[in-house]
């Protein structure tokens, strides 16, 4: 999942905050090395932001889609959406005018709040909600403008809540009469959601047909439906009481009204639906009709009215759907405490989970509501910041009813579970009851199908073989190979493996089919960022900004673009905006933190990462970034702690292994560091990502070898790093240092020159080069002379003395010449000694002269 995003050491953008240049030569080197690692951190950080984006992205698609289609039905809304941000005030006033008919006590409040909003950075928030409301009455929305992210309602919930999917009852979804009752009344199922989407498209063509069908089916179905409602004993009793001839007439009338009402709802003409519903309720006094009326109120966004209405009916404690709707209305009004009271602190099933399994299918409907209510509890806990409780509530929801996709999606999208937990969880999910409820081989197949679908959503780092199996099954047994969810899962997997080009290709294909599928954008942005495709990112973010200012991902895209072109302040502004719009939008938070990290503002980066870490407990990324920041601050112990937490969450991120290796390195546990780096490389190779990504591994491994005095291996690693694309001055410098230590001064000089040609003023290289040159000047220089046949001879200086007849010198005054002899040979022996020292490092250790040694000593 998210992990991969972080991986790639981005080639161009990382504005490395260079550590303050060290003063002395040993320090230089030390810093140099540190810097290398440091750079790596940077890169790493940049990426992950976008990674997270992809995780959190998925949830949006559903709600968005609906709202998009709905939007077409409510033209009034459109101008507002399309308006650019600077016209916001104007837009708002239009919106104010528009809903006046629906006189509401909230108008003034809303007005005030809107004005308030427009002056705050959270304008996007309202915008996001407005288009999502299918009923086009933004004024009604009581949602307070959350300036501070904390009390913000769960975003996904918001989006989808405005549309139907949260609304449970059968009546709203009559379009598909052939649906079995159990299917039709659980809107939170994934299948259902798919159905909706499919419905929306063909509607125009055979709309009337379907309506007719609908009406007739309603007749046929109504008894069935009542039966279903019978499951709530009180309601059915009420209905059964009447029975006479006039009843029949009344029934026909009721039927007529119900059809009319349904028709109105289908056309999104809620005023008429309310009108008819109200009359119908007066006629029948049927709890179902009362519930339905409440639904309509809810659908129009009049949550207080729905709540008050339900209060009046007294059905809340009797009927699960009513209770659910009641709580939902409260949540919509941000009355979390009250909603929690309505729902109760925990599900009654929790106390006795085994009962659940044993219950007959007659209770299936009840269960669905129980699951939905668990989900609502999760939403409330999230709002209240009780993330652990929220996690449990979501898990419970899925356990009670596999089909509570909302809860499952929330868990996955927000990374509430660690990869291990995820796989454990999928094992715990009770697919069996579904098998049982459908029965037979068909049930088995359906279960497998659902399991595969869910598996594609799990962490990509673990069990990739299972993931592949799931994909294969969905592609071969069902025609879902090209389904966007499946392809997106593949793209995410590729991204996780740092195969950005391939991932990008897939995402682009998807975007061709469905341009504004916001689920796709996080991966898309991340890939573009990784590949440094500025221009494409620019175009894309402009397009999003023109069309979808209400989406936080738009601002993340803009932020990513600015980050790529090194305008960090601007990038931060946009990331911050995105995170205000949707506080649970991971990419925004992490991008925000990255901008600080990139500027070397470690403290601020740390606090931003900490916020992210609190929000996304299931992913190791924030913890890892925290560790990286502390590494940069040289708080090795703290860094180690954070990295260990991250390690606990995910043991399969090669880059995390790299970080841990760096900690070992700094703690002088060099052998462990080498082991860690080697494991990381192995893992990376298994994953099969772009080897370019793993330049840092090779480099760091080289450094570790270097400090272990295994220079040959170190040079091999550095060479490898260069071959896979890491040609930079630091690596060249390190190679130079290794050669120097090995006594290959001339090679060292070559490498250092190379480094300087890459970064002409590199202080470390300059320093080392000077040392190398000094050393080289001390070494004897006796080149090879070539004879005509091509063979070479290496005459020594002595040979030349001989050649020039020095050996024949007549020593006239013995005393004087012996005195002079001391001087000359002294030089010679000195040379010889140096030569020995140069090749055997051990000898050199004690040698006070060469400052190169200081470098390596001080380094540790």
């Amino acid at each position: 999942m998210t992990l991969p995003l972080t991986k790639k050491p981005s080639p161009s953008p990382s504005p490395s905050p260079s550590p303050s240049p060290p003063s002395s030569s040993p320090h230089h080197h030390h810093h140099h090395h540190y810097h290398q690692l440091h750079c790596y951190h940077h890169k790493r950080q940049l990426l992950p932001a976008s990674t997270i984006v992809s995780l959190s992205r998925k949830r949006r698609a559903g709600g968005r889609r609906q709202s998009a289609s709905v939007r077409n039905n409510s033209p009034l809304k459109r101008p507002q959406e399309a308006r650019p941000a600077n016209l916001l005030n104007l837009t708002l006033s239009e919106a104010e005018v528009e809903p006046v008919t629906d006189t509401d006590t909230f108008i003034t409040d809303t007005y005030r709040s809107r004005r308030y909003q427009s002056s705050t950075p959270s304008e996007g928030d309202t915008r996001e909600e407005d288009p999502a409301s299918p009923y086009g009455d933004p004024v009604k929305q009581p949602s307070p403008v959350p300036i501070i992210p904390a009390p913000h309602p769960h975003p996904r919930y918001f989006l989808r809540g405005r549309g139907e999917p949260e609304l449970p009852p059968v009546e709203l979804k009559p379009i598909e009469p052939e649906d079995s009752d159990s299917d039709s009344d659980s809107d939170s199922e994934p299948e259902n959601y798919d159905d909706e989407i499919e419905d929306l498209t063909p509607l125009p063509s055979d709309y009337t047909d379907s309506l007719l069908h609908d009406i007739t089916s309603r007749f046929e179905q109504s008894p069935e439906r009542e039966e279903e409602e019978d499951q709530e004993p009180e309601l059915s009793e009420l209905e059964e009481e009447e029975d006479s001839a006039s009843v029949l007439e009344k029934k026909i009338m009721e039927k007529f009204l119900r059809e009319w009402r349904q028709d109105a709802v289908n056309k999104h003409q809620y005023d008429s639906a309310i009108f008819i519903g109200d009359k119908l309720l007066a006629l029948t006094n049927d709890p179902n009709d009362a519930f339905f009326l409440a639904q309509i109120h809810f659908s129009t966004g009049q949550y207080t009215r729905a709540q008050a209405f339900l209060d009046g009916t007294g059905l809340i404690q009797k009927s699960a759907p009513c209770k659910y709707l009641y709580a939902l209305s409260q949540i919509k009004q941000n009355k979390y405490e009250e909603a929690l009271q309505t729902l109760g602190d925990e599900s009654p099933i929790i106390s006795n989970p085994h009962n659940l399994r044993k219950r007959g299918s007659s209770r299936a409907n009840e269960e669905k509501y129980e699951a939905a209510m668990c989900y609502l509890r999760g939403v409330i806990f999230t709002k209240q910041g009780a993330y652990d409780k929220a996690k449990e509530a979501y898990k419970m929801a899925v356990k009670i009813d596999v089909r509570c996709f909302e809860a499952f999606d929330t868990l996955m999208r927000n990374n509430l579970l660690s990869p291990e937990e995820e796989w454990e969880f999928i094992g715990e999910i009770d697919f069996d009851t579904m098998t049982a409820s459908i029965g037979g081989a068909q049930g088995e197949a359906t279960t497998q199908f659902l399991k595969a679908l869910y598996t594609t959503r799990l962490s990509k780092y673990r069990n990739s073989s299972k993931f592949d199996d799931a994909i294969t099954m969905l592609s071969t047994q069902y025609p879902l190979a090209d389904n966007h969810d499946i392809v997106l899962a593949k793209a995410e997997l590729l991204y996780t493996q740092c195969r950005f080009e391939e991932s990008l290709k897939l995402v682009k294909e998807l975007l061709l089919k469905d341009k504004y599928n916001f689920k796709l954008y996080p991966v898309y942005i991340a890939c573009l960022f990784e590949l440094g495709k500025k221009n494409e990112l620019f175009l894309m973010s402009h397009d999003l900004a023109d069309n979808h200012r209400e989406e936080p991902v738009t601002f993340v895209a803009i932020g990513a673009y600015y980050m790529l072109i090194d305008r960090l302040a601007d990038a931060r502004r946009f990331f911050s905006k995105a995170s205000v719009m949707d506080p649970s939008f991971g990419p925004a938070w992490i991008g925000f933190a990255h901008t600080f990290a990139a500027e070397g503002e470690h403290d601020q980066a740390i606090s931003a990462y900490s916020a992210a870490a609190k929000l996304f407990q299931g992913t190791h990324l924030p913890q890892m970034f925290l560790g990286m920041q502390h590494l940069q601050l040289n708080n090795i112990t703290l860094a180690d702690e954070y990295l260990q937490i991250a390690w606990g969450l995910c043991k399969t991120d090669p880059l995390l292994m790299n970080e841990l290796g760096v900690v070992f390195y700094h703690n002088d546990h060099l052998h462990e560091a080498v082991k860690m780096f080697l494991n990381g490389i192995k893992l990376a190779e298994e994953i099969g990502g772009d080897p370019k990504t793993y330049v840092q591994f090779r480099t760091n491994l080289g450094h570790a070898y270097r400090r272990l005095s295994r220079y040959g291996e170190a040079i091999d690693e550095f060479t490898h790093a260069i071959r896979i694309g890491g040609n930079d001055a630091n690596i060249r410098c390190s190679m130079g240092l290794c050669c120097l230590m090995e006594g290959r001064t001339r090679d060292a000089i070559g490498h250092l020159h190379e480094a300087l040609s890459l970064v002409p003023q590199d202080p470390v290289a300059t320093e080392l080069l000077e040392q190398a040159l000094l050393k080289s000047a001390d070494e004897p220089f006796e080149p090879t002379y070539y004879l005509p046949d091509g063979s070479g001879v290496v005459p020594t200086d002595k040979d030349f003395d001989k050649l020039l007849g020095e050996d024949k010198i007549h020593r006239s005054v013995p005393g004087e010449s012996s005195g002079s002899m001391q001087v000359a040979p002294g030089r010679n022996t000195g040379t010889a000694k140096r030569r020995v020292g140069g090749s055997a490092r051990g000898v050199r250790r004690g040698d006070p002269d060469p400052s190169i040694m200081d470098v390596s000593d001080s380094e540790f």
Partner: protein
Amino acid sequence: MASPAAPDNVKHDLMILRKDLRVAARRSSERCLFHASKWLAEQLNSLPENIPSSHNYLKAQSSLSQGGAGLDSFVNDDEEDKYHLAKSYFDVNEFDRAARVVEGCVSSKAAFLCLYAKFMAGEKRKDEESEMVLGPLDGNVTANKELPVLTKKLETMLADNKEDTFLLYLYGVVLLKQRNEKQAYQALVRSVISYPYNWAAWDELKTITRSIEDVNRVMQDLPDHLMTHFFQLLASQELYHVNESVYTLVEQLTEIFPRSSWLKSQKALLSYHVKDYEESEKIFDEIMQHDPYRLDFLDHYSNILYVMDKRSKLAFVAQVASATDKFRPETCCVIGNYFSMRSEHEKSIMYFRRALNLDRNFLSAWTLLGHEFVELKNTHAAIESYRRAIDVNRKDYRAWYGLGQAYEVLEMNYYALYYYQRAGALRPYDSQMWAAMAACYEKMNRPDDAIKSYKRALSGNAGTSAATANQWDGFELNTKTLIKIAKLYERVKRSDEAVHYMEMCLKAEPDLGPSEDIATAKNWLAHYEKDRLNLGRALQLAQELFDAGLMVEDSRAMVRDIRNQLDMDHPRS
């Protein structure tokens, strides 16, 4: 008369060679390796009607003329069509487009073209991004961004155990760009072994050999083939390694390719390296007559004319070149040299820059540009130019020497010494390099090392015999160097050695006649003898000096002094 069988054999060999070269030229051309193709076709067309006698080289190669299976075929028609489209794009310099067309193809030609086009696209972009010559973005700072991708692709393709000579060649090129010479060497050697007529690979291989030792080592890995001899010649020439065996090599090859201008140029360059400028000039004149529109190697010719101070001829060559093609780096270099000769250094720099804009890897232009900057006292620019020259070709001793000079100007003696040493390693028999090194040592206050270097400078070409010879067998010695050695010995208080070298200096007198250096030596010796109370010899030397009218004041004083001393001694004795 040779038996009738022999000529037949030769004819047969010749036909095979002709066919092989034809195929090779076509294969290179099909892969858009234009220079290699040009070279091969040139050699093909310089073959004689018949060969005088059975030829060693030919015999060796005919047995090895196989190789290159699968280089010409396509796996299917689709790939062939795609290849032709890609080739046509490549021909009009649309590299990216070409690469995209043949993406994923597996046939030898198409696969190579795809990667090569990518490489070229990267090079083109790199050149564009480098902006101005010697600007901040010029040089290693700007890299070919396709290289890592290419490395990976080539590695996967070559991992399939396909010994495709051209892919191996490209792999070698990519590795060389990353300065990974060890692996590049392996790739290129594999390439030429699998198909010896791949001239492009030979041409790259030569850049790896940095010494004659390297060449000798490489030769052991290489097949005994006609092309290997070409390589050996080229590599030796570039290493300034001129001797009988190299001349034999040229002669042998010329027998097979009597009309080859390339071989003639090599011969001219060999003469140039041993400072036989007249011979070199003669050969170049011949080439120009024979092939008037040929610009290859003309820059070297202009260097020769420059050294020979033949201004008008240089002007003529410049006219010829610019009439042929104004925008060839060779032309620009010739013109640049001309302006340099007229001391119009600004103009000359402009032309060298233009040459580099046309081809940033054009070695002579970098070195010459460095020289011009030195003339203008722009030391830093000179250093940068020389550095770039070395980046292109580490065997260019002029650039190394230039670097040393520049750093000496900057008084960074350690640096200067290192660069002089590099130049000296390339030309150990060149006194100039050693003298420069010795000067550095002197400045670094290391007289002993300076003495050693001066001794080598003194020995010059005799250095090769230093290991074997016991005694100087009496050829000309540079008296200046002798004096310097002697003075340095004096400095380190080893007067015996100092005397030795001063005496050697005196020995040159019969050949050279009186000179300042000899006067210095005599003067010094006179003082020395006088101090050692060897007054007779001292007087004789001083008298000689005085008689020759050298250092008159000093010698007169000394003569008087010694006489006085003798007089004082006499009464006593």
